[in-house]
């Protein structure tokens, strides 16, 4: 009852400032334009208009895997946006001192954090739908133009999209816990961007060369997310089939990502969320 009420309140918090739709627009523009451009490029390669003859070899991605590889852009590139909105949901409370009214209305701190996570499921789902629509629509249109099957009639494709949605929801939860733990908004944004855009890509690249490194890096959140979704734009480029060998199963990837969300949330509750509010 009080969790439901507090969750509704958390939803209103997100939708009553402009951050959420600004981030959503940037997300849609970013993954949409990336998908459209790459769809055109791969479509052209597939059609023999560019590259393939000159390179004299096989196309970079097997024709059958093309649609899913492009659809994975929604999660493998777009995931930073739900992660950011989740982080901001928490850090904005510290930044603007709004924890005071929040805790006055919901004095049980655990309930307040639970409500934030519940609301984050909804926000994450909305971002997920936006990202998938922004990626699938231009990709399918371009593919149809190049006479490539966008595979939207297959159940596997829709399962793939559902797993992408789940991954993006989990990323939002990771963000909420991380933001509540770090507290400082600027620091949290810097850490999120540095880790997702620089540190993890480098580590995963190293993992693709060295097996024992891969034993570790496949448990990184980005790698787990890609494992959950089942294909990644990056891994497809890294090596046609070799990448799959070291990756986790999709459900393992999901559990690892969920684990990150849970660990951050528990640490936040224990060491940050219950502190005195000044």
């Amino acid at each position: 009852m009080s969790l439901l009420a507090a969750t509704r309140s958390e939803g209103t918090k997100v939708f009553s400032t402009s951050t959420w739709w600004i981030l959503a627009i940037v997300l849609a523009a970013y993954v949409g334009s990336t998908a459209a451009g790459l769809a055109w490029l791969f479509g052209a390669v597939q059609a023999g208009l560019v590259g393939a003859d000159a390179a004299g070899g096989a196309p970079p991605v097997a024709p059958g895997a093309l649609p899913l590889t492009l659809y994975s852009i929604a999660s493998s590139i777009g995931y930073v946006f739900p992660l950011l909105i989740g982080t901001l949901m928490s850090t904005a409370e510290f930044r603007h001192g709004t924890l005071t009214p929040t805790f006055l209305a919901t004095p049980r701190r655990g309930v307040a954090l639970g409500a934030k996570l519940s609301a984050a499921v909804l926000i994450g789902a909305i971002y997920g739908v936006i990202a998938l629509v922004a990626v699938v629509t231009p990709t399918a249109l371009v593919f149809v133009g190049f006479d490539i099957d966008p595979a939207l009639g297959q159940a596997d494709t829709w399962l793939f999209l559902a797993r992408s949605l789940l991954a993006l929801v989990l990323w939002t939860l990771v963000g909420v816990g991380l933001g509540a733990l770090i507290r400082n908004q600027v620091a949290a944004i810097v850490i999120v961007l540095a880790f997702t855009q620089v540190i993890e890509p480098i580590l995963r690249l190293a993992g693709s060369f060295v097996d024992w490194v891969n034993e570790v890096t496949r448990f990184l959140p980005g790698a787990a997310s890609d494992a959950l979704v089942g294909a990644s734009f990056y891994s497809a480029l890294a090596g046609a089939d070799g990448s799959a060998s070291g990756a986790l199963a999709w459900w393992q990837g999901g559990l690892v990502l969920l684990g990150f969300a849970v660990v951050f949330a528990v640490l936040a509750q224990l060491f940050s969320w219950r502190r005195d509010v000044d």
Partner: protein
Amino acid sequence: MPEGQILEFSGLTKRFGAVTAIESVSARVEPGVVTGFLGPNGAGKTTTLRILLGLVRASAGTATIGGVAYPELQHPLRTVGAALEATSFHPARTAHNHLKIMAQAAGIPLSRIEASLATVGLESVADRKVGGFSLGMRQRLGLAAALLGDPGVLVLDEPVNGLDPEGIKWIRGLLRSLAAEGRTVLLSSHLLAEVQQTVDAVLIISQGHLVYQGGLEELSRSEQTVVVADAPDRAALAAAFAAVSLEFDALRSGLVVRGREPEELGRIALAAGVPLSSLARRGGGLEEIFLDLVSGVRTHPSAEAAGAPAVGAPAADAAAVSAPAADAPEPGAPEPGASSADEDEVEAEIEIEAQAEAEALAEPEAPTEPETPTEPETTPGADATPAAQRAARADHELPEIDELHDDDDTDAALASERWAAAPPRSAFSGPTFDSLLFGPPPSDDTPRADDEEEGGAAR
């Protein structure tokens, strides 16, 4: 109609690392009256209120609302409305949405949002972002948030801050009418003058310690003779006092003696051959008594009455009035005098304080005189009287505030004139006259009024 609850602080202590913000604060706030929570900046007011509201965890002790800790309340916002500092707003969010978030979390009907905004006069800016609000508007929005759940208890931290005179007048009327409905109203302020016209009862806190709790009327009536004496050779004066077993505190302004007349101290100094540089009785104005309590020049036994129903209860009033006449040592009272003493005087005073402590037990007993004659008219605890008192005060509220701000501490002549006309004077002279008749206080045949004005003018 929501019911007011009793707020109870019991042995409340909060330490931030090595710093003790508040220590052993025990007090009780009753419904039906406006209670002022007074003390200088940094005295621990906000910390106390935040503990009451479950935002800060106490190091020791409890703070309850109707016997229940805030986090355990079934419907917190419908039980307690709180307005803390005026900065807890997301600047990009509208006033309406700020309240909507709280209403949704607390299960309060959204129709209350418009009602609350209308009550505080913000309905026309409901859909404007709070970032563009003035401090006064933010205060009003904070108050709207407090009123959202139509709670029986209101806890307001410096609600008058940033309000214009019109707003101050308005909030006074609002708080008084809320209390008249039987709600509990607790508001903090660092200025007595700011809330003097609004409150019926006060808690005064200084450096983390409660120094007074009781009715505002009792504060001025419970006059304790306080004399400040100083000499160029202060140590010699201290020794002279100690030699006759006189208890005193060494403060920045001199040696503070309670329950003795200036003449008596002058004789002691004369007998010891110590020339005095000053000898003055502290005046009995409300503001001055307040400042004296805060600085430790004056002490009050209500500070030790842990959880006693001192606010508005006739029995406690009698105690509050009679006890100060007795110059008993204050066992539970911390040493506010010592803590507010000037740094560079500390070495000189170590010896003095040791002596004072030794003398504490040997302090001569003084008469305790129950001041029943003046009791009935001025006791705020009697059901009908608070409203009457409020109504009486309501007529001349704003001008007095301004006057106090203007002349207090700046123009001694004006100030003493004000005292001559102020109501506390009559309340003060009553008990003293009685004690002259019935009790054996130190010999003093000087008319009180003269002493009074000397004290005021000397200041």
